């Protein structure tokens, strides 16, 4: 393949550049076409493939859950949700902090947990 590096632009050859452009264009298309996370008073928490439930963000709370491979602690304060503690080694989910409005989700791969905004249906009230 080194024969093909004759037509090079910088350190990349033409095929490389085409690949790079394809990646950039499809990424931008993906980003612009995917719907903005609409944020509401609820967040959906998925643990493993089976368990998923909604959490009311209008109530400050701290909740512990057992996951298939460990445990997590969610914290809700002032309408925001974050992973407060997680038994996972990398702690990426904890470091992400509160789920921001432009972010789609908080993911903890080792604990198979996803926290995401609920887009629909949004509730106009909760009877409790």
């Amino acid at each position: 393949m080194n024969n093909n590096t004759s037509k090079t632009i910088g350190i990349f050859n033409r095929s490389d550049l085409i690949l790079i452009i394809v990646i950039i264009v499809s990424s931008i298309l993906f980003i612009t076409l995917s719907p903005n996370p609409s944020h509401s008073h609820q967040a959906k928490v998925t643990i493993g493939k089976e368990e998923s439930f909604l959490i009311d963000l209008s109530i400050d709370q701290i909740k512990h859950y057992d996951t298939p491979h460990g445990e997590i602690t969610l914290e809700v304060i002032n309408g925001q949700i974050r992973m407060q503690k997680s038994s996972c080694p990398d702690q990426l989910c904890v470091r992400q902090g509160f789920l921001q409005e432009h972010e789609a989700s908080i993911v903890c791969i080792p604990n198979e947990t996803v926290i995401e905004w609920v887009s629909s249906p949004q509730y106009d009230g909760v009877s409790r």
Partner: protein
Amino acid sequence: MKNSILTKLSMLLALSLILAYLETLLPPFWPVPGMKLGLANIIVLYTLVEMGKKEALMITMLRLLSISLLLGTLLTPSFMIGFFGALFSWVGMSWARNRSLSILGISILGAATHNTGQLLAAYLLIGSTSLFNFLPFLWLASIPFGSVTGLIVLLLQKRKLPLHS
């Protein structure tokens, strides 16, 4: 298998393990989970271009197995995701090897397919489509990260390291 090849493969495997370990010492890139430099891919890519597809697959699988045995993560979600990523990456790079892409191009494609495989595995595990929102960012990151690892392989080739006995 010839002894010389076996020795070479063992050496490469050891190197890839060291690099994978080094990678865990680097601060993780935030906020996209799973985004990392992919240092261990340097060895897989080197093996692929210098030796062949079969050897690269061997290095990939043995590395995954050794690491997970060392860290005790065999068959955990992290292992499954790493496995899918590595397999996708190997398929992507093996395909690209005989095309007109340079080593940098192969490396970028390897990084992008790696990320795609990882996300697919994560989706199969968790089943939340919101995971795919990370995909374009991982694709974009594969350009600089893939270039860096590709460049290192290029330098390795030119240096004719003692590895090249």
